């Protein structure tokens, strides 16, 4: 029985998880979050405990879980309000459930009365009585008084060869020869639903054949002329004759259990008929009437069916012509009425189903892209309007304004189709934190805020890995061991807060922990050892913190296998950059670390400044631009290293001449060029020198990697109104590159 013991161990492991989950969910529910998802999670947890408990025959646990589940089901669909007293009752029930699990594990019995009072309250509530009305009289009510329609069965897991279903031949052999044989007449006409649910008449016949001697006749009268033949049309029905002393209407109906409502079915007993029908056998007939290609689709292949029908069927079918006796007793059991009801129900379903449709994501993306192009065309048109045109064509101006508005509205509406709550990603994190807490021996609580915040589906899909990494990082490097925390006078349980909020055109997602903060000495040491920075390079605290995202920097190898898996936080940065976002980290020694992802609401459209560098157009994301300055007025200087710097309001800013950096010959005199002052992550600035500023516009981001590869300093490309490609400047990348080069 060691298998069973293994399963039990698995089950109890799972129970602890589920009980933990219950606790967590109710903590949130108590705090006022009563969203359907929480209730569903609660329901599922109790349901799983019940299901597993049933498999092992833990009767008391199952009975209690069942009553609790029934209550939760009522709460879930709104029949019972989740008022404070009900919540309290549920939390009490969770404790009791934990007791039942514990008792099952230790083999102890809690006695039949345990939890009976709560169960009585569940029952009263599900009957519609207000909570508390039941009073104390229910104490000690025996469990069998409750209406349990769910019977726990102890499972014998040892394979039992003797009890394996007997093959058909045996059933024939075992038939008592002298017995009066029941002669059943079955009419069976499948509907198309039967095939679309992958039920197969041949299998039903095979099973019927296990009950006795079966004769199958296909009725082919419905087959239309070739011209009208539809490949998935249902043209075949069957008359079956079953001769069996043991079969009953119920045992025959059971064979058709799975197809009830998906076929016309009548089962009738022919009185006094005891002549076993002659050849052909079931197999021959089944092979005859069931085209072998039925495997490949819900319908029958035209070619095979036509072939079979033309040649063989009309000849052979009469040989097994059914006896057309319509007996008065017993009444034929008909599924016709039920299927009528089904059809009506189906119509109602269809009416509600119209409210949502399933659309291929590609189709939505095509619309998103086209709307993106439309927005750009519209802004181009608007830019073409100079004052003269405005004065002359006022109607046109008004038209363009309306167009602009409508286009924006259209854009929002389309993006809303793709938007999803971040919950789908956030929901994976509690388990991760639990696992990591267990592995590291730390105590960690995860709080999530703003799960309902919506963000583009593509962004969501790209979010899971970076978030996992950040949370691993917090669990592994951030939160201290319970002992260390105690010694520091912190609560033993560390907290990781995962939050999402919308801020303007961005979504901010933050992972914040109350751990020890980034160990800057250590980070600096590692960065120097790995030549991420030069040996003498002086960095601000913020710059040091951001080093953890630098390529080549990973402290994972020597720390543990948790955060690592061989990749560092630079993967987070590159993933986030890929979707047009940025990462910012802020850390306070001894107090914790906060990492913030700034993500675009949509991936489709970017507001940019269009500039010229040499002969080429470039665009700089407007969100990163602080100001633009004519070079003739800019206050350039030289840093001690000889590098060019710009003095802005008392601050020295690194200068990147794009013409130099991109090796483009400009030819413009410095005085006529421009500085585009940008803010990179962490609030540090960089001054880009460009040859000319052309204007502002919106662009659709296109990937360079789709057909080429990524290029340092370039975040992607875009197509301008004239059809030419402009490259998008990666401000953060340019800065990081500079830092790296100086070091080398």
């Amino acid at each position, binding site marked *: 029985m060691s298998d069973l013991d293994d399963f039990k161990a698995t089950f109890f492991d799972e129970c602890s998880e589920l009980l933990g989950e219950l606790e967590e969910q109710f903590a949130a529910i108590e705090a006022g979050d009563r969203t359907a998802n929480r209730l569903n999670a609660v*329901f*599922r947890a109790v349901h*799983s405990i019940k*299901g597993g408990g*049933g498999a092992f025959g833990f009767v008391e646990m199952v009975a209690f879980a069942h009553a609790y589940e029934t209550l939760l089901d009522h709460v879930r669909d709104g029949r019972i309000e989740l008022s404070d007293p009900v919540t309290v009752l549920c939390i009490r029930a969770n404790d009791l459930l934990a007791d039942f699990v514990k008792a099952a594990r230790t083999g102890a019995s809690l006695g039949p009365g345990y939890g009976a009072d709560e169960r009585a309250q569940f029952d009263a509530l599900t009957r519609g009585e207000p909570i508390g009305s039941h009073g104390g009289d229910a104490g000690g009510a025996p469990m069998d008084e409750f209406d349990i329609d769910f019977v726990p069965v102890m499972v014998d*897991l040892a394979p039992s060869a003797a009890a394996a279903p007997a093959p058909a031949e045996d059933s024939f052999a075992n038939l008592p020869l002298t017995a009066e044989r029941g002669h059943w007449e079955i009419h069976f006409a499948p509907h198309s639903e039967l095939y*679309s649910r992958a039920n197969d008449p041949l299998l039903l016949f095979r099973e019927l054949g296990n009950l006795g001697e079966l004769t199958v006749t296909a009725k082919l009268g419905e087959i239309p002329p070739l011209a009208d033949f539809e490949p998935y049309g249902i043209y075949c029905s069957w008359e079956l004759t079953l001769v069996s002393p043991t079969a009953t209407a119920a045992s025959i109906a059971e064979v058709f259990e799975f197809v009830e409502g998906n076929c016309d079915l009548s089962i009738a007993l022919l009185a006094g008929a005891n002549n076993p029908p002659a050849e052909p056998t079931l197999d021959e007939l089944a092979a005859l009437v069931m085209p072998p290609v039925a495997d490949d*689709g*819900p319908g029958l292949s035209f070619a095979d069916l036509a072939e079979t029908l033309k040649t063989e069927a009309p000849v052979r079918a009469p040989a097994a012509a059914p006896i057309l006796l319509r007996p008065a007793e017993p009444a034929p059991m008909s599924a016709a009425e039920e299927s009528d009801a089904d059809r009506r129900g189906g119509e109602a379903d269809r009416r509600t189903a119209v409210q949502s449709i399933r659309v291929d994501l590609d189709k939505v993306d095509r619309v998103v892209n086209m709307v993106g192009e439309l927005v750009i065309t519209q802004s181009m048109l608007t830019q073409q309007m100079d004052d003269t045109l405005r004065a002359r064509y006022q109607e046109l101006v008004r038209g363009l304004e309306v167009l602009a508005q409508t286009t924006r509205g259209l854009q929002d509406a389309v993006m809303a189709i793709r938007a999803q709550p971040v919950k789908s990603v956030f929901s994976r994190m509690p388990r991760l934190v639990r696992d990591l807490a267990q592995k590291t021996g730390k105590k960690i609580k995860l709080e999530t805020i703003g799960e309902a915040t919506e963000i583009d589906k593509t962004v969501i899909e790209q979010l899971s890995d970076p978030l996992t990494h950040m949370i691993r990082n917090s669990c592994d490097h951030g939160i201290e061991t319970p002992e260390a925390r105690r010694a520091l006078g912190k609560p033993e349980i560390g907290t990781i807060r995962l939050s999402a909020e919308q801020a303007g055109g961005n979504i901010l997602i933050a992972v914040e922990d109350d751990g020890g903060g980034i160990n800057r000495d250590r980070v600096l040491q590692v960065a120097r050892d790995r030549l991420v920075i030069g040996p003498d390079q002086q960095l601000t605290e913020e710059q040091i913190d951001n080093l953890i995202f630098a390529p080549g920097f990973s402290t994972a190898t020597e720390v543990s296998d948790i955060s690592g898996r061989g990749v560092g936080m630079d993967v987070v940065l590159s993933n986030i950059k890929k979707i047009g976002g940025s990462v910012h980290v802020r850390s306070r020694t001894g107090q914790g670390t906060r990492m913030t992802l700034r993500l675009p609401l949509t991936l489709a459209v970017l507001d940019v400044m269009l500039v010229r560098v040499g002969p080429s157009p470039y665009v700089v994301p407007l969100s990163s631009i602080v100001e633009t300055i004519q070079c003739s007025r800019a206050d350039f200087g030289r840093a001690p290293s000889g590098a060019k710097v710009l003095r802005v309001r008392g601050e020295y800013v690194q200068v990147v001449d794009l013409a130099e950096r991109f090796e483009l010959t400009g030819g413009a005199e410095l005085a006529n060029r421009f500085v585009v002052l940008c803010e990179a992550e962490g609030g540090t600035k960089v001054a880009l020198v460009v040859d000319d500023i052309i204007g502002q516009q919106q662009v659709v981001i296109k990937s360079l990697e789709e057909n080429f590869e990524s290029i340092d300093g370039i975040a992607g490309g875009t197509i301008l109104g004239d059809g030419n490609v402009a490259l998008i400047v990666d401000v953060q990348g340019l800065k990081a590159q500079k830092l790296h080069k100086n070091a080398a």
Partner: protein
Amino acid sequence: MRVLTVDDSRTILAMLHHTLSNAGFEVLQAEDGQKGLDVLATEAVDVVITDINMPVMDGIEFIKNVRASGQHNSLPILILTTETSQDKRDQGRAAGGTGWIVKPFDPEKLISVINRVVH
């Protein structure tokens, strides 16, 4: 013969695995409907057994998605359910489920139900 089992309960997955592999099936596992779809996208299976109550994507959605793909029209899908109330079962059938198995299942019954829906 390959079976895909989809259930968020590790216990049930383990028990299905035990019973089915003893009966000579090759068993694939998925913890929710979404993962089940992922498996079906790359693996060929002969029959699917799925739970109804699951996070991320429940069994009903899973079945709908399998059928909607159009590539698994003849793949038998058995609904694994403790729901004795008809409605879950009916929803599962309406979504395209081939049949059902009531939890807790006994091994023989499980195999015999599978044999009812696969060749």
